[in-house]
């Protein structure tokens, strides 16, 4: 009779998977916090030009978005149009008014407005005259939003 019995095989204890959800949740929260949904316009056809020399966009919450391109909606016609923060620009001076109203909001005027970035998302084929018209409104002395960034694709 041996001391080491071979009769009964001992089963390995099952590995506890109780901590697995915790790990996965941790990953989940990480991705939820670090990423933001890709902002894509639903109303404008856009093909941004490429550039070699680029900077990274920071402070996305401090930018006002300008879309310039042909509208996806055929009812709006086939010419290049401008949108500011999802609103179609329909008359001259509308952008200046919009910015002026933002500037008047007390909690924006001090910190936010002084660092505001005008982010242009423009279709590569759009005419510069349109871009310049928008920028002329930004230069209006009553609003003076002078910092402009052009959204581009990086060329490798």
């Amino acid at each position, binding site marked *: 009779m041996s001391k080491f019995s071979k009769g009964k095989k001992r089963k390995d204890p099952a590995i506890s998977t109780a901590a697995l959800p915790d790990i*996965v949740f941790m990953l*989940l929260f990480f991705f939820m916090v670090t*990423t933001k949904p*890709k902002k894509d316009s639903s109303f404008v056809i856009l093909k941004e030009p490429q*550039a070699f020399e680029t900077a990274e966009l920071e402070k996305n919450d401090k930018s006002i978005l300008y879309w310039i391109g042909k509208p996806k909606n055929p009812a709006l016609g086939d010419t290049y149009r401008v949108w500011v923060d999802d609103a179609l620009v329909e008359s001259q001076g509308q952008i200046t008014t919009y910015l002026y109203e933002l500037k008047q909001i007390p909690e924006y005027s001090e910190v936010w407005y002084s660092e505001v970035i005008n982010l242009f998302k423009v279709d590569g084929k759009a005419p510069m*005259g349109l871009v310049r018209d928008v920028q002329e409104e930004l*230069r209006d002395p009553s609003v003076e939003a002078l910092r*402009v960034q052009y959204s581009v694709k990086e060329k490798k």
Partner: protein
Amino acid sequence: MAKREIEEINASSMADIAFLLLVFFLVTSTFLKEKVQDERLPQKTEQEGVKLKPYNVLTILANKNDRILVEDEFDINEGSEVEEIAEYVTKFYIHPASESEDKWPAVYKISQKQCEDSVASLTIKSEQFPDNQNYSMDLKTWKKRLGACQVLGGSYNEISEKAVIGITLDNSTKYETYIKVLDGILTALTDMRNKLCQEKFQRDYTDLDADIEEEKKIMDAIEMVYPKRIFKAKGIASAE
């Protein structure tokens, strides 16, 4: 009544649910940061259209057919716009001293002594005439120059304050053409700044962090040597 034991809830499918959420966020989100090109619009002033000496301006013209011309004569080839524009821009900032007259903007040597003297005298003047904007503006410029001298080791060469790069565009010039021109200018500037930074501090200008005070000083100094002054002119009256 006998106490009934509560059955344990099976939590093994919790992981599956979490995985499902995780996969969803992985697929719908992107790590890519948006890429941008910076520009600062000029302030609106009373006198639009200041007369500039031709040698102080590097004119880049893009017409309605998206042809690019530098200094009204050099035709830029399609396909290599960025490289060719960058070449001209580099020449505009760095050129042999012998051919500077009437062809290129003047370059001045700025020394620390000169800066200190100017700052001292302008401080007195701006205190005497607090209403005069010119003195306080000059003082600001000279203080910046002094800062640049201290960082760059005593003295540096500065291109004339009047030197600008002028981009003239037609109203129907395509936006992508403008981005190409801008890209050329920015490529040249970054190259020159990187080179200077490598020479002085053995690192790239683009690696500097503006949030660190020491590095911000270096950045400011390098930007004094190679300033970004772009001026977008109104459309050409369909000059073909």
